[in-house]
C-alpha cells in the first residue's frame, strides 16, 4: 500500500466557523469493529483524590483541610464529586460517566512527569528498555489484523507517544496550511529525494493539504448537532479543546475508531482549587462535546482519561498537592458502565499510604484499559498481555464495559 495514502490523517484549519475548520481523508477503510476508543492523556498528574473525593474515609478531611470544602456532592455514599465536575453529573446519572480509584501505572518513586507520561503512553512496566518511542495504541494498530492504520490520528501540536511507532498515524493542527506552486512542489520532491524524513513529511503535508477542499460536510454536520444539543449550553465555546473534541467526534461518526489527545494543566502544586477548576472545565467541555458530536455513535464509544500518576494524599503548604503515586482514571461513554466508582479503596490512614505519603495503588491502571479493549474490540488476552501491555497480568474483569 502506498505509504502516502494511509498516512493521511485529519487536518484542521482555523478559519471562519462557516468554512470547514477541519480536514479529513476521503477514502478510509472500515475498521473491523464498530466501537470507538478515545484516550485522553491528562498531563501534569491529576489529583484523583480531589476529583473523586472519598469523603467516607475519616482521614480525608484531616489530610486536606482546605481542599475538602464540603461542597462536593455525593456520588455513591462513599465518594463525592468535585464541584467543578458537576457538568458530568447528568452522565453519571445516565450511567455514562464513572471512575476507577486507587490505580496507577507500574511507575514508582521518582515521580517525574516526563518519565511518568512516557511509561503511561508506552504502556510498559518501566523505562529500562531505554530510548523508548513506541506507544501502546500504536502497538495495537500493528498487531490487530484488518485494522487500516489511517483510522488512527493524533490532533494537536504535541508529540503523542501513545500513538507513535511503526504503524503510521498522522498529526495536523488548527492554523496549518500549505502554500506552494505546482512547479515548486514537483521540484521539492527532487530536492528531498534522498532524505526520507523530509521527503515523507513534505509529501504528507502536500497530500493532506490537497484534501482540504474535498471535505466540508462532516464538520458542517457537527456544527449543526452542536447547535441543537441542549447539553452544549454548559460548554464554553471557542476553546481549542472544544475544537479538537468536535473534530474527533466528526471523524468518529465516519470511519475513525481511535483518537488520542491530551489536556494539560493538572500539575496543581499551588492553589489547587483554581487549577482544578480550569482542568475540569477543559475535560468536562471535551466529554460533553464528544457526546453531543457523536450522536448515536456515543453508545458505542469509550472515553478513557489517564494521567501519569496521582498526587500526595496530604495537601501541601500552598493549597496544592505534590507528585504522588495512586490516582484515578475517569471514564465516559455509552459503551461503558458508568454510575460507579470501581476499584479497591486502600484507605488514607497513616499506615495505609504508599511511602507514608501517597494513595496506595491497588491495581495497575493498564488492566482496566486492557479490559476495555478486550470488551470493546475483543482483543485476545495474549495480545494484550504480551504485545500491547508487556508484563501486564489481566486479572479479573472489573466490569467497565456494558
Amino acid at each position, binding site marked *: 500500500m502506498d505509504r502516502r495514502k494511509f498516512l493521511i490523517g485529519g487536518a484542521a484549519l482555523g478559519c471562519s466557523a462557516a468554512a470547514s475548520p477541519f480536514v479529513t481523508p476521503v477514502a478510509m477503510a472500515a475498521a473491523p469493529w464498530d466501537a470507538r476508543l478515545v484516550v485522553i492523556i491528562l498531563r501534569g498528574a491529576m489529583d484523583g483524590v480531589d476529583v473523586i473525593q472519598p469523603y467516607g474515609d475519616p482521614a480525608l478531611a484531616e489530610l486536606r483541610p482546605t481542599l475538602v470544602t464540603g461542597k462536593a456532592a455525593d456520588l455513591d455514599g462513599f465518594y463525592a464529586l468535585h464541584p467543578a465536575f458537576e457538568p458530568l453529573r447528568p452522565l453519571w446519572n445516565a450511567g455514562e460517566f464513572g471512575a476507577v480509584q486507587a490505580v496507577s501505572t507500574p511507575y514508582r518513586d521518582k515521580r517525574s512527569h*516526563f518519565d511518568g507520561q512516557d511509561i503511561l503512553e508506552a504502556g510498559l512496566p518501566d523505562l529500562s528498555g531505554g530510548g523508548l518511542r513506541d506507544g501502546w495504541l500504536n502497538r495495537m494498530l500493528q498487531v490487530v489484523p484488518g485494522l487500516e492504520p489511517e483510522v488512527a490520528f493524533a490532533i494537536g*501540536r504535541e508529540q503523542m507517544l501513545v500513538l507513535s511507532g511503526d504503524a503510521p498515524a498522522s498529526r495536523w493542527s488548527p492554523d*496549518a496550511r*500549505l502554500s506552494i506552486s505546482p*512547479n515548486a512542489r514537483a521540484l521539492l520532491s527532487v530536492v528531498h529525494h534522498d532524505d526520507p524524513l523530509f521527503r515523507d513529511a513534505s509529501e504528507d503535508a502536500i497530500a493532506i493539504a490537497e484534501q482540504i477542499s474535498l471535505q466540508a460536510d462532516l464538520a458542517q454536520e457537527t456544527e449543526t448537532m452542536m447547535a441543537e444539543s441542549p447539553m452544549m449550553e454548559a460548554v464554553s465555546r471557542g476553546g481549542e479543546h472544544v475544537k479538537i473534541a468536535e473534530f474527533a467526534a466528526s471523524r468518529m461518526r465516519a470511519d475513525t475508531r481511535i483518537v488520542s489527545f491530551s489536556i494539560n494543566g493538572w500539575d496543581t502544586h499551588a492553589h489547587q482549587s483554581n487549577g482544578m477548576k480550569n482542568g475540569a472545565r477543559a475535560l468536562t467541555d471535551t466529554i460533553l462535546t464528544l457526546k453531543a458530536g457523536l450522536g448515536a455513535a456515543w453508545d458505542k464509544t469509550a472515553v478513557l482519561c489517564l494521567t501519569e500518576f496521582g498526587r500526595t494524599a496530604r495537601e501541601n*503548604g500552598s493549597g496544592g498537592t505534590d507528585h504522588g503515586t495512586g490516582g484515578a482514571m475517569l471514564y465516559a461513554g455509552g459503551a461503558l458502565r458508568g454510575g460507579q466508582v470501581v476499584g479497591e479503596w486502600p484507605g488514607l490512614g497513616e499506615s495505609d499510604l504508599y511511602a507514608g505519603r501517597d494513595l496506595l495503588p491497588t491495581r495497575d491502571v493498564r488492566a482496566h484499559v486492557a479490559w476495555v479493549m478486550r470488551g470493546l474490540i475483543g482483543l485476545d488476552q495474549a495480545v494484550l498481555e504480551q504485545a500491547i501491555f508487556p508484563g501486564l497480568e489481566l486479572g479479573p474483569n472489573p466490569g467497565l464495559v456494558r
Partner: protein
Amino acid sequence: MPFDPTIAAIRFGIGLSPTIAAPSSVADMLARLTGPDTIAAEVPIPTYTDVYPSPLDYRQATRALTQARGTDGEDAADEHRRQVRQDGTDAMLSFVKADLIRAAYTEDGFRERLVRFWADHFTARPTKGIDRHLISPYIEEAIRPYVAGNFADMLIAVVGSPMMIWFLDQHQSMGPNSQAARGGNKGLNENLARELLELHTLGVGGGYQPSDVRALAELLTGVSASAQDGGYFRPSHAEPGPELVLGVEYGGGEASIEDVNAGLRGLAMHPDTARHLARKLVTHFVGPSPSLTLVDAMAARYLQDGGALFGMYEVLLEHEDAWNSVARNVKQPFDFIVSSMRALGVERDEISNAENVAIRRYIHRPMTVMGQTWQRPVGPDGWPEEEENWITPQGMAGRITWSMQVPQNLLDHLPDPRAFVYTALGPTPPEAVLFAANAAETVSDGVGLVLASAAFQRR
C-alpha cells in the same frame, strides 16, 4: 582537525550570511566567545533588574488605580495602568526584534546558540499575563553573561531569578518547622528542587533518591521573590537545621542564602551533572546518540576545570564528530527563520521598523504552526531535540509555506536563486538543490526551494 567554515557557521552558529564571514578556525570561534559580547552591546535587551515595565511598575499602577477609585483621578490612573500593560507588550515585541537582529548580524554565532541552548536548559515560563515580556530579560540577566563562564554561577543566577522562582512555585515553599510555618498550615513545595535534580543538574537518570529531592527542597526554603524585591532570601521561611543532599551536609547554622548556593555548587560539581550537561550539549550541536568517549572527555574536562563551561566547548569543537559531513540535526523553527533571514540579508531597519502585525504574521504565527510557540515550551524540560518532533507533515507545511511566501515580504529584491543557493548552503550545495534553484519558474520559488530543502533545514 577537519574544521570546515561552512559547518562552523551552520552547525555551531546561526548560518551563512552574504556579508559576514564564516568562522576561520576553532580558535577563532573560541576567541570570539571569550571576547566582548559586541552584538548584545549594539542591540541591547534590558536585564530583569533593569527592565521597564517591571512587575513593580505594574503593581504601583494597580495600587494607584485602587486609591483613585471614585475620585477625579480614576480615569487617568486607569489610563496609566492600561499604558503600562501596553508598554509590556511593546517591550516584548522589541525583544523579539532584538533577538532577530542579533541572530542575523552577529559575528559570534556560537554565543547566540549557546544562549538559546542554556535558556532552554533552564526553561522558565511567565506565570502571569503581565510577565510575558520578562523571559528575554531573564535570559539576559541569568543566562547570557554565564554561557562561557562557570556553570555553578549560571545555576545560582537562575535559582535566584524571580522568573524561575515563580515558575516553579519556590515562593510558595517554606520549611515545615520554619518560623513562618508555625501557626499556619503552609509547608514545603518540592517543585523547584525536583526539576533542579531531574532537569538542571544530575538528570533524571542521575544518582539521587526521593530523600535528596526533599532535602534539597528544605535547603531551598527561604529562596523567594516578590515584585518589590526581586529574588531575595527570607530566613523566616527557611527550614532550620542542616540538610543532607547527595551525601553532603549543608547549612545548620543561621539560615542564609550562602547555604543554598553551597548546595547548588555541590550539585554543579557532581559527576552525573557533568555527564548530563555534556550529553545534552553534544546532542544539541552534533546529533542523537552522542559518542560516549566524547561525552566522557567533555565531562572530565568540566570537572577538571572546576565547572567551567569553556573547556567542554573546546573539547567538543576539537573532536572529529563535530565536523562530520553528515548533518544529523534539524534547525528548530526559530533557528530556521533567523538563519533564513541571515542568509537573505534582511536589512536591520526592516526588522527594527517592523509593525507588530508583521512580527506576528512572519515570525510568531509561522513558528507556532511549525511547532514552537515563542518562548513558551510546554514544560520545564524545554523543546525536544529529536528531528521527528519537528519534521512532521504539519511542521513541514509551515516551513514550506514560510520559505515560499515570506522572503518576498522581507526584502525589496529577492536574491537570484542561482547565487542564493551558494550564499545559503556554502560552496558545495547538493546537486538536487542546485538543480531546483536553477529550474524554478519564479525567483520566489527558487529562493523558497533552497530554504525548504533538507540541506538548509539540517545542521
